[in-house]
């Protein structure tokens, strides 16, 4: 009996606080979400003085356009707003933004100071958490750079929400084209990542191909026929001064790219009909040969760590992708799918290679892991070629040409997931884009 009593007490004791007697938290696992653009609101920035009125509006529009262009965000039109932002400093009425389902809210203010200096401030709010997302930031610059400041705000917003760096404040160099296929004029052009601010770097006289940015964006390498023969040429983007590299008579040089440290160039050199890969030190001019095979070796691209080079070779009979050490030597084939592979480009994150693939009469832009696994084709058309990565490795831009006598070329971009294929809004035709790093 005593035992029974003790037991009873013991049990009673265990069960004593009934409220605690639950079974721990309810656990749920969610492995399906939705892939859709996140709604955000960016009310026109507050103009803190009269001179800033137009700028404030324009800056908000550029921010919105940047974010929307990613396909990851969707702007809620301001006609849906319940409350406005009348002052940068006033607290946010979260409920008003929740009510219109704005998940992110961007507020900001612009003022124009003496000497045309403008100040742009912004804050980002996670509406449903009733909290700001990161600190507010303020950018100061010249009036001329207002678009860049808008891009910087958009980059911040993008980074805070996605957890990866942005890419809006960057530029793209490409070949601007005009004229029919059989008499096409090509010249180098440069633009902001959103297609604004187009400027030409060369005149139309000589054929130019495939420009590439230096790692810090100060120079551009390209192939020019200015001498009558293809020659790799390096141009200073600010002064437009240029010089050709490796002028050896009886050879052609093309397909250049910078090494990640910017001090040397890897490229193709053709001699006697055979094309191989070389590097050249830009300071000393010293050249070294990385491949020597009777096949075509071209389109080299460094890994971001500078240790490896991926390139195209037709040593197997058709163009395929190979990876070798940056010093040359044995190369390992990485492309094994049906078709022909070329123009490989190592991603800035280092984990992927983008390429052009020809298969069954169509061209694709695709990505694969650096060992060739997990190949995914992102696009398909009559002729897509020449991918380039956004500085954060998230977006790929490339050239697309339509078929037939009236075929025209245009620049397109696509998210690395394969979504959000869009044509770049630029005047005229273009090909061979190359993305700069994020601007400082």
């Amino acid at each position, binding site marked *: 009996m005593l035992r029974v009593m003790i037991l009873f007490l013991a049990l009673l004791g265990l069960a004593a606080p009934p409220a605690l007697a639950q079974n721990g938290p309810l656990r749920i696992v969610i492995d399906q979400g939705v892939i859709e653009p996140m709604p955000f609101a960016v009310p026109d920035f507050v103009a803190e003085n009269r001179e800033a009125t137009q700028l404030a509006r324009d800056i908000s529009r550029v921010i919105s356009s940047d974010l929307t262009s990613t396909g990851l965000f969707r702007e809620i039109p301001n006609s849906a707003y319940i409350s406005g932002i009348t002052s940068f400093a006033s607290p946010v009425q979260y409920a008003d933004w929740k009510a219109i389902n704005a998940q992110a809210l961007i507020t900001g203010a612009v003022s124009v100071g003496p000497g045309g200096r403008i100040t742009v401030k912004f804050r980002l709010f996670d509406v449903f958490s009733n909290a700001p997302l990161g600190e507010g930031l303020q950018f100061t610059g010249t009036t001329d750079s207002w678009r860049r400041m808008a891009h910087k705000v958009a980059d911040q917003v993008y980074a805070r929400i996605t957890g990866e760096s942005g890419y809006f404040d960057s530029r793209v160099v490409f070949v601007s084209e005009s004229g029919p296929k059989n008499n096409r004029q090509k010249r180098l052009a440069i633009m902001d990542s959103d297609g604004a601010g187009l400027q030409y770097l060369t005149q139309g006289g000589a054929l130019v191909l495939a420009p590439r940015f230096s790692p810090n964006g100060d120079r551009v390498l390209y*192939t020019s026929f200015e001498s009558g023969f293809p020659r790799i040429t390096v141009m200073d983007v600010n002064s437009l001064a240029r010089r050709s590299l490796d002028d050896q008579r009886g050879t052609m040089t093309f397909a250049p790219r910078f090494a990640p440290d910017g001090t040397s160039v890897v490229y193709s050199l053709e001699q*006697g009909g055979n094309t191989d890969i070389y590097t050249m030190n830009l300071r000393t001019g010293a050249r070294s040969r990385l491949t020597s095979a009777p096949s075509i070796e071209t389109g080299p691209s460094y890994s971001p760590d500078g240790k490896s080079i991926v390139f195209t070779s037709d040593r197997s009979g058709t163009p395929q992708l190979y990876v070798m050490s940056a010093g040359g030597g044995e190369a390992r084939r990485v492309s094994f799918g049906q078709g022909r592979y070329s123009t490989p480009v190592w991603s800035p994150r280092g984990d992927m290679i983008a390429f052009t693939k020809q298969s069954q009469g169509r061209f694709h832009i695709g990505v694969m892991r650096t060992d060739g696994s997990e190949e995914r084709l992102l696009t398909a058309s009559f002729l897509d070629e020449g991918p380039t990565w956004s500085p954060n490795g998230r977006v790929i831009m490339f050239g697309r040409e339509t078929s037939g006598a009236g075929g025209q070329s245009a620049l397109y971009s696509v998210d690395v997931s394969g979504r959000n294929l869009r044509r770049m809004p630029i005047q005229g035709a273009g090909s061979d884009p190359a993305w700069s790093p994020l601007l400082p």
Partner: protein
Amino acid sequence: MNLLTKSALVVAMLGLAACTDPGRFGGSADGAGGFGAAGLGSASDPASPAYFQEAIGDRVWFAVDQSTLSDSAVVTLDGQAGWLNTNTDYSILIEGHADEQGTREYNLALGARRASAVQEYLISRGVSPNRVRTVSYGKERPIEICSEESCYAQNRRAVTVVGTGAGS
């Protein structure tokens, strides 16, 4: 940028503009530096470049992805070699081309292969190597612009452009 810099740039640019495309007057779209395309003359004059171009045939064609010379190409090139061995004042520039079914840089290399195949053959037929240069335009200079095999076949070519200014 001050006025002085601008002026300097203008001068520089004019200097450059002066040396564009000597070859545009010949059969080819872009001329190679130091290579002046010859006046064509009359096709009825067997010693004229026009005769070379029209009667002998200045170009040969290739199969997809190939740079080997076909039988008919060899016949044409034999004719070219004979003419060149007779008219030794002329030098030649061999342009290699590819169709649009390929990526730009690979096609540049492919065009170079084709030009080189022609070069080697002509040399083997007695043309002095000093008189011959090659260049590749890849897919940049198509003749026919439709996107069908009939056009592609015309564009996969090597063209022998006769010029003055020997192989300096």
